[in-house]
């Protein structure tokens, strides 16, 4: 860590900056150094042969956190991405969060079709192999469940990991066919204003997409991080509506009905609507708000040494590109701009980083994102005040991590 970086260390609010600079750079006086002589088995014998499909190291211990289903509908549940164990911005396909309403269908693509019908010149049906022949685009986009971080709307903060609390968010390179190619082929009527997407799962997930979005960035996604979609993400095809609540990116897509009005399906009326304090509810509130969180240090980690740490996390906004992220180590009294490490892309996750010196002081770490439209991530209290006290969709309040003097990191409300 050079002197310039150390000068960027955030004032934790408990120690003057001068005192921080006097502390040792690493805080580790002793270290255990392995001998240079080759002694380990993997250095002395041939390893495993090649494999058909790679797996992570068993030592990495990567796994999704199961957030459970309804007791009466175990396949209608979710699992979250272990954000605290990942770095960079791409969510590995095997760790992409899951949310299903009636399990993951095992679809044979030879027996699956996509049909465009309704207010079109010519209803059309496409086979999977037909769609593979169409020109495609590739984009990196985030995907966030509308209910992500809902646990932080509860009255008492839960002592959970960053992933358990906030892991219904992903970022992948999605490749697919711009929807307007297929809409143009079918010939959309002038009166058409909505596209109703229907899934082939047992729940038959159905959502209405405004035509303005459908003609813009919406795609029929066929590939996820370079390989065909995983079954849990809609194999063989899903709708992808960038920047919007994940539920509208209908998986296992089987039909698109074009019409003048929304369908007002159960999933956009009874569910996925935001109840306001006055008892009215917002409908078609699709774009996800500006948001960020620190993934390290984060909940249930323990700082086992004093010294320099890298505070790092993720930021995103359904309105476009992240312009900046600030980090606080004193519960929001003072803020320092973080370094945006990934080249910020519109509607994609942006990684931020900032060095932080911990000398054993009790601290509260927070991050606060600002997007290209100047929207600033709200405090928890401000985010909660928008909606009914029982509301839990579209929560984007600031995540606070308390670091105790013993180095124990815990979810707290500020």
């Amino acid at each position, binding site marked *: 860590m050079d002197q310039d970086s150390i000068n960027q260390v955030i004032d934790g609010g408990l120690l003057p900056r001068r005192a921080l600079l006097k502390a040792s750079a690493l805080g580790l006086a002793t270290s255990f150094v392995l001998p240079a002589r080759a002694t380990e088995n993997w250095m002395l014998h041939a390893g495993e042969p090649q494999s058909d499909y790679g797996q992570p190291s068993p030592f990495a211990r990567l796994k999704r956190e199961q957030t459970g289903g309804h007791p009466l509908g175990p396949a209608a549940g979710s699992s979250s991405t272990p954000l605290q164990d990942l770095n960079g911005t791409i969510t590995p396909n095997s760790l992409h969060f899951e949310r299903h309403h009636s399990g993951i269908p095992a679809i044979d693509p030879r027996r699956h079709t996509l049909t465009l019908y309704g207010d079109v010149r010519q209803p059309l049906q496409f086979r999977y192999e037909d769609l593979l*022949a169409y020109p495609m685009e590739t984009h990196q986009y985030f995907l966030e469940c509308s209910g992500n971080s809902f646990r932080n709307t509860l009255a008492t903060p839960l002592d959970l990991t960053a992933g358990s609390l906030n892991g219904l968010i992903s970022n992948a390179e999605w490749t697919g066919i711009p929807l307007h190619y297929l809409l143009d082929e079918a010939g959309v009527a002038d009166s058409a204003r909505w596209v109703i997407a229907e899934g082939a799962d047992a*729940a038959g997930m159905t959502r209405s997409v405004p035509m303005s979005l459908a003609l813009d960035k919406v795609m029929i996604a066929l590939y996820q991080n370079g390989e065909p979609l995983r079954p849990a993400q809609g194999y063989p095809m899903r709708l992808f509506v960038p920047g919007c609540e994940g539920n509208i990116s209908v998986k296992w897509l089987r039909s698109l009905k074009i019409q003048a009005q929304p369908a007002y399906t159960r999933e956009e009326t009874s569910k996925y609507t935001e109840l306001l304090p006055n008892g009215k509810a917002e409908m*078609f509130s699709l774009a996800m708000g500006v948001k960020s969180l620190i993934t390290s240090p984060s909940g249930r980690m323990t700082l086992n040494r004093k010294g320099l740490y890298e505070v790092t996390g993720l930021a995103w906004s359904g309105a476009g590109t992240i312009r900046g992220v600030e980090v606080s180590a004193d519960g929001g009294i003072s803020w320092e701009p973080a370094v945006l490490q990934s080249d910020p892309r519109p509607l994609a996750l942006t990684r931020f980083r900032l060095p932080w010196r911990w000398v054993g002081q009790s601290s509260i770490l927070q991050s606060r994102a600002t997007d290209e439209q100047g929207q600033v991530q709200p405090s928890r209290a401000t985010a909660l005040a928008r909606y009914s006290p*029982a509301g839990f969709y579209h929560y984007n309040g600031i995540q606070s991590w308390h670091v105790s003097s013993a180095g124990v990191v815990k979810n707290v409300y500020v």
Partner: protein
Amino acid sequence: MSLAPGWLKMSMCKPFAAHMRTLRTLFRVLLVAAPVLAEAGFDPRNGGPGLGRPAPDYQGTIVSGDGSGLPQGSSSAAQGEAIFALRCAACHGVDGQLAGNSLVGGIGSLATASPLKTVGSYWPYAPTLYDYIARAMPYNDEKSLTVDEVYAVTAYVLYLNRIVELNQVLSDKNLADVNMPNRGGFIELQE
């Protein structure tokens, strides 16, 4: 189809459509043989793969709030009571009020600290209740109810909420006319 300019499509007759199929096959061959499409930049209005197969008779199963898409059929809550007891009550309770999965009650609760969102207190349209039961219920045995059974269960859930009468017959002709208490309770944020 995409090879034909708009004025041709307007007057397309069957022999001509057959001719277009030949053209389309030729186009596919060209697509494989000469991948100039990507280099030139793709614009489907100038002709694309055009692999969609005409599906003029496709009806789909999507039922909208205005009742469009409802299949022909009818039934009443009186018919739905036994079906509900057999197929729905395990998860929703015989009275539709099993905690956590309640379909009934909550009217007047939406602006309180403990809002109860149910068919009676929250759903704005009756036809989409039909749609949801038809496509997604009962859990793990989805799409197993007949059309008339779905009308019956729809009517029974509405009856439990005192929205329709026990013997009131609901059908594709009148389901959209059912007066849902929270119909005016939503603010639409899109066009």
